[in-house]
């Protein structure tokens, strides 16, 4: 042990805070192990209930945003474009696509959903 170790140990002993090292959790004694299965079973049930239908909050939020007043112009243009292009495709080919309109709508929706989404996600 060098002189430096002595000094660091002294400093660590004197310091009012302590450092936390992530060690492996200690072996659980058998007494607590016996209790665990019940808890786990309960947790499993809860998890299963939750995971039966994990709905992606991003999709629902963005759907709400698309229909909100904020994105009404973008949605209007996109819907109109889709209608126009599908009609044109039925009547013979067209070179137009709705990618740009889709971009504007998606940008508006994700912009509007971003803060709400982050408040939900862990």
């Amino acid at each position, binding site marked *: 042990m060098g002189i430096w170790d002595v000094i660091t140990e002294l400093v660590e002993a004197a310091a009012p805070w302590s450092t936390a*090292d*992530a*060690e*492996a*959790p200690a072996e659980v004694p058998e007494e607590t192990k016996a209790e665990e299965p019940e808890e786990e079973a309960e*947790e499993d049930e*809860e*998890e299963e209930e*939750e*995971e039966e239908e*994990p*709905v*992606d*909050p*991003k*999709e629902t939020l963005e759907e709400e945003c698309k229909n909100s007043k904020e994105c009404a112009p973008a949605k209007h243009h*996109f819907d109109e*474009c*889709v209608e126009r*292009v*599908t009609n044109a*495709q039925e009547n013979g080919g*067209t070179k*137009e*696509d*709705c*990618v*740009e*309109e*889709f*971009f504007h709508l*998606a*940008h508006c929706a*994700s*912009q509007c959903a*971003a*803060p709400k*989404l*982050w408040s939900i*996600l*862990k």
Partner: protein
Amino acid sequence: MLARSCLRSARAFAGLRNGAVHVSKRAASSSSSGANAESPLRLNIAAAAATAVAASSIAWYYHLYGPTADAATPAEEGLHPTKYPWVHQQWFKTFDHQALRRGFQVYREVCASCHSLSRVPYRALVGTILTLDEAKALAEENEYDSEPNEQGEIEKRPGKLSDYLPAPYKNEEAARFANNGALPPDLSLIVKGRHGGCDYIFSLLTGYPDEPPAGAQVGAGLNFNPYFPGTGIAMARVLFDGLVDYEDGTPATTSQMAKDVTEFLNWAAEPEMDDRKRMGMKVLVVTSVLFALSVWVKRYKWAWLKSRKIVYDPPKTPNTPPRL
């Protein structure tokens, strides 16, 4: 020669303005007398003209070179990702290591089948994502080349903490062959290597629409993703709700998994971030202490100068009449 011809033309202009009668006189007189005769109106016109020329030359320049021409449609450019309020990107925040652990799980169970993470060794995971024992166990699951033995043969040995995470393919050609010619990029530095960083990765993973918008051309073997430049990406949507079973019971929705894995990839790209921010904090603390010290020292050193008083004591000479 040039100066003389200029002078001559100036004279000609002067002659035009002042009338032909004075021409001979002006030509005979010196140039200084000519300057004296100049009216303020002429000077004003000259200044205004010079300003107009200067302004219009700037306007001309910007007309020629100002606007940059982009030969790309919005689809070729790709949709710019939305800015998300990442907590770990704030100045005084660290990575959420619980999220890193979840993100590593997502990487291992989902991404690792195609993407390598070649610059991350197992030892980097210790203490940040896994415990020592977990990292050792994980390393031992894979085999690595050992040192040549006595016959010069290279045998396989279980992995150690100093080994790097194994790649899913032997080389680029194998990766391309397995993926229809598309190369899954290495993810070690992907967050630093893409415009938009975390926002881009998150948007790309969650941004696959159910179906491409009407009229969009999607190439064979490609998928439509608005965030990918060109919108045609070889990677299909991989994250689906409930794909991963998180050990801490977090609901594994698509966006949750995307968020976790993005934060993990950000950690992989800059594992020094937590330390860097701590170092920055130390710098702020030390410099603020030194600044406070210097203010006090300055007060001390300047005290004699600031507290001195200069007094004029006029000589006492009574009975002298005041000067006028």
